[in-house]
């Protein structure tokens, strides 16, 4: 017992001595930077697991080019099955046993919630996480957590503002997923409407449900003239198709997480999708308008060589490319000062950083009291089988 105590104390002293000499925190050495990514590789949300492969592949590519400042990047991807209890177990394993420098890209709102406090108590960065909840931008209380995606709430406000201006006499029917994702959108949307009475019907569905046919009938019967579709891809496609089948002719708004043409609009039937309004901040690789765009070309090359599991139809497979690129930039800037504090400081000091895949006019901006990297989006309309941007890039916050 005494021996182990002495060993621990000595080990601790040596470790802290080494850290002071080279400005390293645990997980960084002269030839390696180790970080973790927690995603659902199994379970109902496993489609999102590709985010983990994206980070792994991206930094494999970086390593093949010689690493960052002479250091190889070691990415540990762990599966939490989208179960928050498991996320904490994996985070503790990565931080306490594997000794990672930080976590990045972790996917999901409930899962990141479970480790929110742990990561901040431990003072280990929870960086560029792949979730759009609005609560992550809270540097005062949670200085070690930073999201990457623009928040769902910010996007919902854009639709509400558009309706306030363009369709002031709208009667709105809302279909939303009964979880934090659906409610974040719905609550912010209603909050931003000038006349709350515009909403004539709100109907929810559960992710575990089979169809939403009855919900669509309820919405149609309410006499709504505007349909706000807050559904994840599979259900969004069903809703668009069903609206067409039952002849419910409305102005449709569709959340950006479900606006991929190949994954949602094709199965929904392009004739049913005509006229839908959505927002975008990323360049969709499948969009012919970007066929010659250098970012999109680079993404296709990356996908072919390092990210075979990626898909053109899944927005998170391009969003993670953008966040991995930004992470590489942060690590590059950190140089030899690879402490957790320095990494957060650099991540919180991005000024107009041009990350790939972002639409022209949108860049990454953060500061000590603004932990929300992407704060602009553009409205777009589905016309003649393709998305067409309209209006200016809209800043949100």
């Amino acid at each position, binding site marked *: 017992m005494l021996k182990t105590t002495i060993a621990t104390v000595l080990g601790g002293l040596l470790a802290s001595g080494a850290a002071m000499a080279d400005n390293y925190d645990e997980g960084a050495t002269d030839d390696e930077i180790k970080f973790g990514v927690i995603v659902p590789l199994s379970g109902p949300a496993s489609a999102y697991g590709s985010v983990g492969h994206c980070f792994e592949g991206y930094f494999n590519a970086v390593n093949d080019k010689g690493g960052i400042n002479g250091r190889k990047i070691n990415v540990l991807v762990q599966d939490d099955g989208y179960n928050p*209890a498991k996320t904490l177990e994996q985070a*503790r*394993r990565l931080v306490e046993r594997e000794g990672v420098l930080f976590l990045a890209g972790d996917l999901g709102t*409930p899962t990141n*919630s479970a480790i929110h406090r742990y990561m901040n108590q431990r003072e280990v960065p929870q960086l560029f996480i792949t979730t759009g909840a609005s609560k992550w931008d809270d540097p005062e209380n949670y200085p070690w957590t930073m999201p990457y995606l623009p928040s769902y709430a910010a996007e919902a406000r854009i639709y509400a503002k558009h309706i306030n201006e363009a369709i002031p006499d709208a009667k709105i029917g809302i279909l939303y997923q009964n*979880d934090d994702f659906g409610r974040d959108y719905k609550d912010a949307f209603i909050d931003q409407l000038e006349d709350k009475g515009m909403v004539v019907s709100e109907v929810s569905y559960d992710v575990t449900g089979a169809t939403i046919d009855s919900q669509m009938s309820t919405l149609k019967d309410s006499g709504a003239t505007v349909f706000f579709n807050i559904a994840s891809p599979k259900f969004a496609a069903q809703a668009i198709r069903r609206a067409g089948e039952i002849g419910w002719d409305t102005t449709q708004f569709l959340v950006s997480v479900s606006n991929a043409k190949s994954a949602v609009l094709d199965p929904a039937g392009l004739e049913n999708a005509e006229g839908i309004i959505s927002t975008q901040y990323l360049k969709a690789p499948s969009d012919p308008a970007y066929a010659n765009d250098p970012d999109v070309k680079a993404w296709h090359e990356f996908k072919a060589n390092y990210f075979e599991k990626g898909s053109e139809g899944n927005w998170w497979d391009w969003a993670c490319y953008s966040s991995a690129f930004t992470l590489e930039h942060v690590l590059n800037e950190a140089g030899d000062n690879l402490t957790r504090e320095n990494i957060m400081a650099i991540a919180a000091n991005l000024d107009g950083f041009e990350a790939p895949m972002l639409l022209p006019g949108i860049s990454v901006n953060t500061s000590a009291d603004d932990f929300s990297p992407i704060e602009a989006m553009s409205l777009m309309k589905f016309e003649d089988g393709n998305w067409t941007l309209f209006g200016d890039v809209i800043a949100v916050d």
Partner: protein
Amino acid sequence: MTTGLNEPANRVHEMPDFRPSARFWARLGYGAAAILFLAATGTLQGYELFLASSILSYAIAAMGLNVLMGYNGQISLGHGAFFAIGAYSAAICIDQFGMSFAFTPIVAGIVGMAAGWIIGKPALRLEGVYLALATFGLAIATPTILRSDLFAQWTGGVQGLFLLINPAPKWTGLDLDQSIYLTVVVYFLAFAYVTLRLVRGLNGYAWLATRDNPIAARAMGFDVTKAKTRAFVYSVLACSVGGALQAVAVQFVAPDSFPFFLSISLFTAVVVGGLCSPLLGPILGSAFIVLVPNVTEEVWQGGSWAVYGAVVILVMAIQPKGLAGMFDWLKFKVAGQSGS
């Protein structure tokens, strides 16, 4: 650790003891194991303590479920629901009433038993696969109920609840992980004691008789319905306490923490651990469901559940009595002949 006394055929030690040494060694073994569990508070650290707390919380739940499935022969696919009820009871006690975490499992147990009694009353009229299906429905409904607006005021709805847990007072010298682990161990030892008493006493006979031949059991004067209800309520109690302790260890509850798959995991823990092994089975089974997915993930990332499934099939094919059965078999090989 045990001496094979859990085998129904060997359960004769309640009678005047003609082999005092066996009983003495068994007790010594239990005592030593209890001290080992307590001592781990000081020897394990952070992540290991968290894992151990997690395993023992599941083990408490599995102990109860083992009584229901192993001793009483009823199948439940829905005890994850009671695990969730326990977890949420503990979370609400801490969140709304600022209760000390160490006492929340007691409240959780009471709430869970009440729920178990209400659900068990009609459900226990069903047998075998029908009971399995009824409890299955319960497990499917749980996440949806937890998400609903009706109870969001208490449950935190889709966002879940954070549990603010304070470590034991400074003078004890225990940090947060140690405080939680020690609490879990105390509940675990209490359940281990009660479970052993129950399955080796008259209750145990009633359960076994009800399982093996309900008509004969009734003819002998056992109240079959009561025996079944008791087994069900005890299993529910154990699951809610296990759930409460798990919630405390994770310090967060959300509907997604209690998917239907949790019920299957508990089921797996009981069967892979070994039916009718009251202590060793649940411990080994719980260690299995917590640790093996981590190992299989290393083996084949992305296909880890396929590997996991293969391991489950392998265990069942080699030894239908589960891991505890393998353990007994090993012990028999090593020391069985010497008569200890």
